[in-house]
């Protein structure tokens, strides 16, 4: 008995703030109430945000990276708050590759059930609120198979969100390339823009994937992705940073990202010539579409410029700090 009290006492001295860290709480009854109401049923755009915990993000990104050129997948645990999916944790599924996915889901099912059972046994009662998978090198969007997988989940497992991570671009861009999506009901036609055109990031879809991308981009929309961390996480991240600050100084993003920014430039050129054709005489493209195209061009070039500028800053800082004084 004595032993137990010691553990508790010690755990009570914590760096935990009930308000700042509120997302780490969980109320099963509240989740049940939301599930009974199903407010997403009446509004195809109901969910707008996904917030991912530090651990969940780390687990998903490293999983995607470990898969290399192979698509990997896993599930996310969490809860729903308002128009937001709160992802608290993630776990891998023993499934790899695109083609096998639909069948493999049955095999993975047993694994999932057992995994969640143990999680619940050890005070992690969160349900699965979505799945993640990797698109190594071809950007964050939903393919035809992805769309049908997600649509099926939304039909039977809602609330459910699809997250896609591109590990290759994460490395080349030096920042996490991630997207979150929900499909529309079968009979629903979104007004105006296509599914991914309002995505924060911008898409360079390889030619061999272009058709798959275009064919389904109106079946889904993207959600805003952001992360969250606890007060304790923040304190530890400061300490962690002390271990890798050298990387911050020595990095050369301009060189490391050259391929990536070249591809982005090509995409920008394509967008511009596309808009030019759309604007040319005899074109039947409606004015609103042209507006959207111009906006996308502006957004894309802004983004490329911002990245380039960040790279430039890195180079200049390095130059100033490390260049030997003239002797």
């Amino acid at each position, binding site marked *: 008995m004595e032993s137990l009290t010691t553990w508790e006492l010690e755990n009570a001295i914590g760096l935990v703030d009930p308000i700042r*860290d509120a*997302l780490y709480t969980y109320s099963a009854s509240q989740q049940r109430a939301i599930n009974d109401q199903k407010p997403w049923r009446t509004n195809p755009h109901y969910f707008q945000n996904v*917030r991912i915990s530090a651990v969940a993000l780390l687990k998903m990104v*490293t999983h995607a990276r470990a898969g290399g050129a192979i698509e990997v997948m896993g599930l996310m645990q969490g809860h729903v*708050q308002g128009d937001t999916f*709160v992802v608290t944790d993630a776990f891998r599924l023993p499934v790899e590759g695109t083609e096998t996915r639909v069948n493999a889901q049955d095999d993975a099912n047993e694994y999932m059930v057992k995994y969640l059972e143990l999680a619940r046994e*050890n005070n992690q009662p969160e349900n699965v609120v979505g799945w993640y998978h990797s698109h190594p090198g071809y950007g964050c969007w939903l393919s035809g198979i992805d769309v049908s997988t997600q649509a099926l989940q939304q039909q039977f497992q809602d609330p459910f969100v699809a997250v896609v991570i591109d590990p290759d671009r994460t490395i080349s861009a030096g920042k996490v390339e991630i997207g979150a999506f929900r499909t529309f009901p079968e009979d629903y036609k979104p007004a105006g823009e296509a599914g991914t055109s309002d995505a924060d990031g911008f898409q360079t879809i390889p030619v061999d994937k272009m058709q798959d991308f275009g064919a389904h981009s109106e079946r889904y929309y993207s959600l805003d992705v952001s992360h969250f961390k606890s007060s304790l996480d923040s304190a530890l991240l400061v300490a962690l940073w002390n271990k890798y600050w050298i990387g*911050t100084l020595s990095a050369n993003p301009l060189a490391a990202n050259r391929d990536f920014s070249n591809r982005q430039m090509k995409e920008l050129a394509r967008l511009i010539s596309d808009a030019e054709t759309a604007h040319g005489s005899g074109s039947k493209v409606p004015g609103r579409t042209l*507006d959207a195209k111009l906006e996308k061009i502006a957004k894309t070039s802004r983004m*490329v410029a911002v990245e380039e500028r960040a790279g430039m800053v890195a180079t200049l800082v390095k130059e100033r700090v490390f260049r030997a004084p003239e002797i």
Partner: protein
Amino acid sequence: MAAPAPPNPLLTSSTADSSPAVQLHPLVILNISDYITRHKLRGQKGPLVGAILGLQNGREITMEVPFDCKYVEREDGSILLDEVFFKERLEQYQTVFKSPQLELVGWFTTGQPSGPEQRHLPIQLQLQTDLGYESAMLLLFHIALASQTAEAGGKLPLTLYETIWTNEGSMDIEGPERNQPLRFREVPHTVEASDAEMIAVDFVARGGGNATAVESETTSAETKSNENGKGKGKAKVEGTEEKDELYLNHEEEEHIAGLQAKANAVRMLQTRIDLLLSYLSSQPPSYLDDATTPMSAEPPPNHEILRSINALVARLPHLSAANSIVLEREIKEAKTDAQLLELIATLTDVLPDIRELGQHWAQAQARTAPVPTLGTLRVDKREFGEGEAIEAGGPLR
């Protein structure tokens, strides 16, 4: 580590012939942190225990993936791992961490900076003897120190221990394990992150996102948030800031975050250099320069440190001078590229405005000089038998 007043009877005084090299991954640390926060906020009782998976290659060990464990309490109040839970969970994790195949390398729990205590022994022994993980290490996370990490020069609030069986007397240890001459020995570690892991950690570290609850839980049911939900979501995420006056757009935030990261890194470099300088200036003067200096300085200089400082200084000239012309050209090219892109962005930014101007122009044109444009158009329309209104004629549709 400064020795605390009463020596910890569970720590061995013998020093290791060769300390294992442990690489600790950020996921392990953040997972423990996550576990603590959840545990606390959900009002859960009892100890926090978990397993750590990694790779072991001789004395080289990585700690990569942790998972929380269920515990059982024995009648005497001591804590053990729930073996059924542990074995099943381990199998599940090993199924999905196959290439390379991760193994159990240790376990974690919370504890004092002074080291392991009686209450930590049962699980350690369970892992080493009942479950057969003879070299399982212990990671003690010191919650009490966590709030001071910033002041502590970035030292992580944790300590790693390996165990050895000794024949040191165990008289001063009470409890059921008094006959086990098992002792802990502190093991140094480094923090290692894979490329993707580092980017993810950086991503998480930088952004402002704390874990304040999402408001509008009840209201959002009636919010038709699809149209301008974008901007709103962003503001909510950035959270704590004041509204408009301080509002920076995403680009500016990123730019500032990037500059801050650089500034911090430069500052860090400066403190490290200062440290070396103050170390050097605290050294006794050389007896080679000054004959009156006694030959045996007290304390004696650490030649290893001095040699590595010397090596560092010797390397400096090689870093820049050699290909400075090539470097300079490269920097110039990069600058031009960046400026060119800046220009393109500025130009494309105003495209929508120019188009709007064109449209207004066309409308104004149509009003002031209706005859030539509208006249011809009207003829066309009539020929094709189309409707009355003409939307917009002119140079830009």
